[in-house]
């Protein structure tokens, strides 16, 4: 095992060496950094040119210059890696390490959402193979797959940000919108749950009516301009979440799981005001982390009280529920920050921004203000990225799920009389996750390098911007820095994917061929 990993890491260095040599020379021969200065007529142009040539070793031909660059990289083994200087004379490593957190912030949420939604839709689509829902999902996935992200981004900016901000000035939903949203939601739920004709019609009517009632309520109470959850809403939503998670995780017949997850929600309801006070008084990231730990401890403790035997599924259910309850608390707090946030001068009643990763004009020092600001800046890029990336996951998880559902062990599971929920969640879903996990790991790396366009459209100053700058300024060191980062991520992700595959699937062993 360790020999295998060692061999793979050695191979990784070889590959990195080869591909960096390739791209270094391609970039060096393709662009001349002195181009701008050669045409210049300023008196110091010649001196500057000489200085530039000296600084970047431009008198050395690219294949040999590569090794000068590599010598700096070689210091990685002594602890202080030297990636050279950018054209602005700042170290490349600084430029990159400033950019990485921004890119990570940009992609994390969208990646998680794309995975959850994509896999969820893909699996339901496979379970409802050849139904209208399946066809609609297939078409939707292909459509998303064919969309240029920058085109979607411009549409989102126009309709979601500018029009939505205009709409928020008033906050009342027009009847025509309520009607169409209800029809869409009716179709969606009817297709999703499906069944006999009467049932489909009933589901359509119920979900449509529920949607209109909800939207009308939101409109009348002006909730959209004065959002907030409050303890009662938290209890209702939490109860729904608890039942839903228990249904998926263990089935409602598992009484200890249901009881303990509902108890977790009830505890959340009881401590609503103390927690609220706590979040306000000690607002910081570490407070949230401490509360997360406390929440998990409570969830585990509760499940130990309710379950005497077979504790694992109960613990799992209540832990997931408790995390959702925690998220509800955060959402509630952010919503309460909404009104003062929107009314600050920096925001000026236009909360959804179209550009940049944060608003510099905001009064600093307020944790919830800056958190809400970050969240709102994430809205548009996240929607764009989710739409585009989830298409692949819908297709992939649908295909895998269909393959798994045709396996003999699924038939065996059904034949021995297991309930359909157990067959799908325990036998089929888990096996579907094996190939999906590995593809996800590889995707993490490529997305990190591939948010170039999204960053460009939404004006985030992350890795993509650095890369853009590097190509436009013929900044070879910066380009190589960005490349080295993304390429090593891709290679490491491939290694992790292979190891994960063998860990998840006992039929595959990582010994490599002899």
């Amino acid at each position, binding site marked *: 095992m360790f020999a295998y990993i060692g061999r793979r890491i050695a191979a990784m260095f*070889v*590959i*990195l060496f*080869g*591909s960096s040599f*390739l*791209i270094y020379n*391609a*970039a060096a021969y*393709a*662009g001349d950094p002195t181009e701008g200065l050669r045409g210049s007529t300023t008196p110091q142009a010649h001196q500057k040119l000489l200085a530039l040539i000296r600084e970047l070793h431009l008198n050395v031909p690219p294949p040999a210059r590569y090794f000068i660059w590599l010598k700096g990289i070689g210091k990685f083994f002594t602890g202080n890696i030297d990636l050279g200087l950018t054209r602005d004379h700042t170290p490349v490593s600084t430029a990159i390490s400033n950019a990485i957190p921004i890119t990570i912030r940009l992609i994390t949420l969208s990646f998680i959402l794309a995975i959850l939604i994509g896999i969820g839709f893909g699996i339901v689509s496979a379970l409802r193979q*050849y139904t209208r829902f399946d066809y609609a999902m*297939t*078409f939707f996935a*292909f*459509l998303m*797959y*064919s*969309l*240029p*992200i*920058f*085109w979607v981004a*411009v549409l989102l900016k*126009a309709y979601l940000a*500018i029009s939505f901000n205009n709409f928020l000035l008033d906050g009342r939903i027009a009847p025509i919108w309520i009607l169409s949203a209800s029809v869409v939601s009716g179709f969606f739920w009817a297709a999703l749950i499906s069944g006999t004709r009467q049932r489909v019609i009933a589901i359509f009517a119920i979900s449509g009516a529920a949607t209109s009632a909800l939207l009308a309520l939101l409109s009348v109470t002006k909730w959209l301009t004065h959002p907030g959850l409050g303890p009662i809403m938290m209890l209702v939503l939490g109860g729904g979440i608890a039942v839903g998670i228990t249904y998926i995780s263990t089935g409602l017949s598992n009484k200890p799981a249901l009881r303990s997850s509902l108890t977790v929600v009830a505890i959340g309801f009881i401590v609503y005001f103390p927690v609220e006070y706590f979040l306000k008084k000690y607002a910081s990231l570490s407070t949230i982390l401490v509360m997360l730990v406390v929440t998990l401890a409570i969830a585990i403790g509760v499940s130990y009280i309710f379950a005497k035997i077979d504790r694992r599924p109960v613990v799992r259910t209540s832990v997931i529920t408790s995390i959702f309850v925690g998220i509800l608390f955060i959402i509630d707090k952010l919503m309460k920050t909404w009104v003062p946030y929107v009314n600050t001068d920096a925001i000026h009643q236009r909360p959804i921004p179209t550009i940049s990763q944060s608003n510099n004009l905001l009064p600093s020092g307020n944790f919830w203000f800056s958190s809400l600001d970050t969240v709102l800046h994430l809205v548009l890029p996240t929607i764009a990225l989710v739409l585009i990336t989830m298409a692949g996951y819908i297709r992939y998880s649908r295909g895998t799920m269909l393959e798994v559902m045709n396996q003999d062990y699924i038939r065996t599971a059904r034949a021995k009389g297991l309930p359909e929920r157990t067959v799908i969640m325990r036998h089929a879903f888990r096996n579907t996750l094996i190939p999906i996990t590995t593809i996800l790991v590889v995707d993490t790396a*490529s997305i990190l*390098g*591939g948010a*170039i*366009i999204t960053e*460009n459209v939404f004006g985030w100053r992350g890795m993509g911007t650095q*890369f*853009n700058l590097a*190509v*436009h300024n013929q900044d070879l060191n910066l*380009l190589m820095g*960005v*490349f080295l980062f*993304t*390429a090593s991520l*891709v*290679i490491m992700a491939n290694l992790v994917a292979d190891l994960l595959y063998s860990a998840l699937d006992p039929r595959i062993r990582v010994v490599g061929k002899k």
Partner: protein
Amino acid sequence: MNIRNIFGRRAELVEVDPDADIFNKETEGLSQGQIVRKRFFRHRGAMISLIVLLSLLIFVFSTLGFKIFGIGYGGWWKYKITDIPNLRTQGCSIELPGCPTLDLIPGKNFGLGDHPFGQDDLGRDYFALVMRGAERSVEVMVVIGMVAGFFGIVVGAIAGFYRGVIDASLMRLVDFIITIPTLVIGSVLGYHFGSKGVLFLALFLGLVSWGGLSRLVRGDFLTLREREFVDAARVAGASNRRIIFKHILPNAIGIIIVNVTLIMSGAILLEAALSYLGFGVVPPDVSLGLLISQYQDSFTTRPWLFWYPGMIIIIVALSVNFIGDGLRDAFDPRQRRRISRKDRAAEHQSAAKK
């Protein structure tokens, strides 16, 4: 303990498939190619996409005309991309001259009109610009598909067929290429070679996007070369070249075709993205990505400048994706069409008659 040991003879678990008869009857006496063709023609999404794509291509390439080997066709559209007619004010609001005249609702103004896609701020006919952009994008797509397909097949086939040292070294080369994100190398090359012409750019992009395909082809060749029919051919004295081209390649063609279509649908988006970032096609030449990038700021004032190029990209990419999906279904031997109640009833009736 297995069944054979208990009963002392070979026992087979016969899978009871109520629809087996229908499928067997459908494919009876047909060659592989005929079965694939039949399945593909039955894939409704793929067929619609094929028709849409073909008519779009004919429309696009006939609009401005083309010239191949001296044989030229002038095109039926009255404007060229270099023409700068006056901005049309009639029928538009005063602030927004040059609005589109395309009218798909039957009536007095039905038809293309003078400027179907409107005019840009200078007055250039946007229909001509979009059609030229679509030509460029399709050319880039086809060239990338062909170059990547060629290298993917050749490298994959050689590596998979000869194995050993050749395989190992070729696959390391593929590793190098796969490590480099296509957008990264595409930008570096496109930024410097984009000005040398679209086809040059497409050629370079094709040279960096064959890695995945070659891995798949290699995998297929590795399994196929161990099959009995290859042994039979070798015993009969066939040369390596004959085995590769006549015996293995036709069996691997499914994977190849499907993946080349996927590369092509990715290629049109790649070109658009590069041109959008300013690393692809450069003015005075036109491409759809470039048009979107040039006119994205005018979305609030002249939305048509933004909508039409995007729509063309989506139509082309979507149809290519659907065609790829149809081909995948057609080539997949496990793939079965959905049996409707009518088919099953007919089958039961005919079985009852017997």
